[in-house]
């Protein structure tokens, strides 16, 4: 087990390096200069030149990358082009907010997907299966920002049950924090559940067709025990594996939702970086998301290994 953990952690290194190179290249080849984005329409050619020189943007790209990477390894992600604020601490401050939002959303997705997916799988080719599959398609194809607007209109403006936006830090008020994240989490979680329902359903169908289920039934195992001890346990591995990937997509999709709900997370920082061509901000925030996704995938694999190492081997094979 420790060998697996060590091996996986080591594999992070080349992944992070490659991801950082791709991000760095992407950020720099997209049209639109950082200098003009910061200095505005009145920027003179001299001011632009001065800005680019100050921030090293007039150097070859590989030198810029080496400089940035060398500092990033030591935790120095530079300062924002817009306001000279150190980027590292700002990103660190926002990571817990996004993780909390994404976790809540994922929790909602699982709460919806596991029972509905399992029910659809157990009632394969019956009417409930068809209904749930249709619901899953509907959920999965709904744009989360559209859903967010609808939820705000209904539950914030019409009924006044939730705020229209803003974030209450967890340490200030647990209830306030959860309340402020409820609608954004539902916007994200409901959409994510679309895919997860289908994964759960497929996993249950496959498990139900396996020999050991027939054996269990013939031995007189009751439906409740059959489901929880045999079907669910065997179906959860593929669900976890895809779920980890889906969590990654979820973290990436917080960008618009954080902006709509005025939540100061990593996603809104990515937006700042893109709109303002604030390269240090964009790079640091994007790398943070990359790391979160890698970590979640690692934890999902670890959990799967703990639940049933044989299943993991089967899935890998």
């Amino acid at each position, binding site marked *: 087990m420790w060998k697996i953990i060590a091996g996986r952690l080591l594999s992070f290194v080349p992944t992070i390096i490659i991801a950082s190179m791709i991000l760095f290249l992407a950020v720099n080849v997209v*049209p*639109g*200069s*950082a200098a*003009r*984005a910061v*200095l*505005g*329409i*009145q*920027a*003179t050619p*001299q*001011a*632009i*030149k*001065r800005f680019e020189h100050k921030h090293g943007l007039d150097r070859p790209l590989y030198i810029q990358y080496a400089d940035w990477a060398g500092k990033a390894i030591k935790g120095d992600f530079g*300062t*924002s082009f*817009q*306001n*000279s*604020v150190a980027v590292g601490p*700002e990103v660190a401050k926002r990571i817990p907010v996004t993780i909390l939002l994404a976790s809540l959303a994922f929790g909602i997705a699982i709460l919806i997907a596991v029972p509905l997916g399992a029910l659809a799988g157990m009632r394969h080719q019956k009417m409930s299966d068809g209904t749930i599959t249709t619901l899953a398609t509907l959920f999965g194809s709904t744009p989360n920002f559209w859903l967010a*607007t609808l939820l*705000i209109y209904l539950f*914030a*403006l019409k009924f*006044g049950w939730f*705020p*229209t*936006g*803003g974030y209450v830090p967890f340490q200030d008020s647990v209830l306030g924090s959860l309340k402020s994240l409820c609608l954004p989490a539902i916007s994200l979680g409901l959409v994510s559940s679309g895919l997860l329902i289908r994964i759960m359903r497929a996993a249950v169908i496959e498990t139900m067709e396996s020999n050991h289920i027939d054996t269990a039934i013939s031995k007189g195992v009751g439906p409740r025990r059959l489901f929880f001890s045999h079907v669910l346990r065997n179906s959860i591995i593929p669900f976890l594996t895809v779920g980890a990937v889906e969590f990654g997509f979820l973290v990436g999709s917080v960008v618009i939702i954080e*902006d*709509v*709900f*005025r939540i*100061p997370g990593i996603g*809104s*920082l990515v*937006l*700042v970086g893109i*709109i*303002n*061509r604030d390269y240090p*901000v964009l790079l640091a925030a994007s790398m943070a998301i990359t790391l979160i996704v890698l970590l979640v995938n690692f934890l999902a694999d670890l959990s799967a290994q703990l639940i049933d190492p044989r299943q993991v081997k089967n899935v890998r094979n």
Partner: protein
Amino acid sequence: MPEDSGYAYRSQIETIESVVAEDDLTVVFNLKTVTGPFEIYMAFPGSSIVPKDLVESGHDLNAEPVGSGPFKFVSYTPRDSIKFVKNEAYYESGKPYFDEMTYRIVADPTALANGMKSGEINFSNEVPPKDWNSITSQSNMVDAALEGSRYYWMLPNHERGVLGDPLVRQAIAHALNREAIVKAAFFGQATPFTGGVIPEWNWGYADLDVFEPAGNITKAKELMSKAGVASGTPISLMMVSSWPPMMSMAPIIQANLAAIGFDAKIETMEVPRYWDEVWGTSNFDLTVMYWLSPLADPDDFVTNTYATTSAVNVQKGGSKEMDDLMMAAKSAVTKAERKELYRQQQELSLTDMDVIPVVNGWVLTAHTNKLKNFKPMRTGFLKTLKDAWFD
């Protein structure tokens, strides 16, 4: 200041010959020439007096601004908020009345409107025009809108084919249905320009009724015919995709251009690329831009727009005659003299048609009725919050 300083507002301080601090509370500026708007220039935020030793020590004023105003800067969270606390040493005793203030940055117009409707946001001077009525119709909100200094103008690139001909530029100017633009893009919260760019509320305004608010296609066609422009001449209108008023006015402008014989196509791009393509390299035929004049002096409405050497002269227009007129207007001794010269400048602008004035936007300010004694400024600045209080 050196010529290569890169300071965009260098022209405002070039007139300064010397500066002397006579005592702790008196600064004397000796100018090279009469400069009518000089006091206004010094009121510009970029002209703020800051401690020399602080700047020389390397302190970053962008990250941690300092000042002697009513509020002190506390912190800035990107795309979230700026926090202030009361400046206890503010020179107006007893003010400001607030102990602290949080300026929330709400980039999404819908999120802003939702926040105002629910009461979570109790003040905004950037209320989206489309939500203006629904927000201000609430019994606890106060409508504090007034015509501002946010004027929109169309830039025709003088180096692109027929747009180099002033008759064609005049034709486009007459073809524009500014009334429709006010309704569609601003939901009625803007004033169409019928003459020069200096708005009616400003003392430099010249009552030059040249454009019909709904446009005059007949006159525009006559000008096109005089200029000898063939029907179906292609032209592109470059707009910023993330600015709602621009995107709303684009189809109207396209239709107006089509009515006078252009085959007009709308092209869009996001902001940073727009800065580069249009502002950096003048790679455009027509575009629409807006300028928020922070100074409320007639000079600020015209110099940036029309000066040959202006950093925003991306349309490659301008003339010595115009430059000389604006310099004369800036340097005239009395307000009456300056007013007459700005009249002449605006008359010339409507002949040359370097740029095409479109509409002047309003500052849409709405706030809770618990906020008392707030007087909005046409520039949109919030300096007058120092005089306001909560009931």
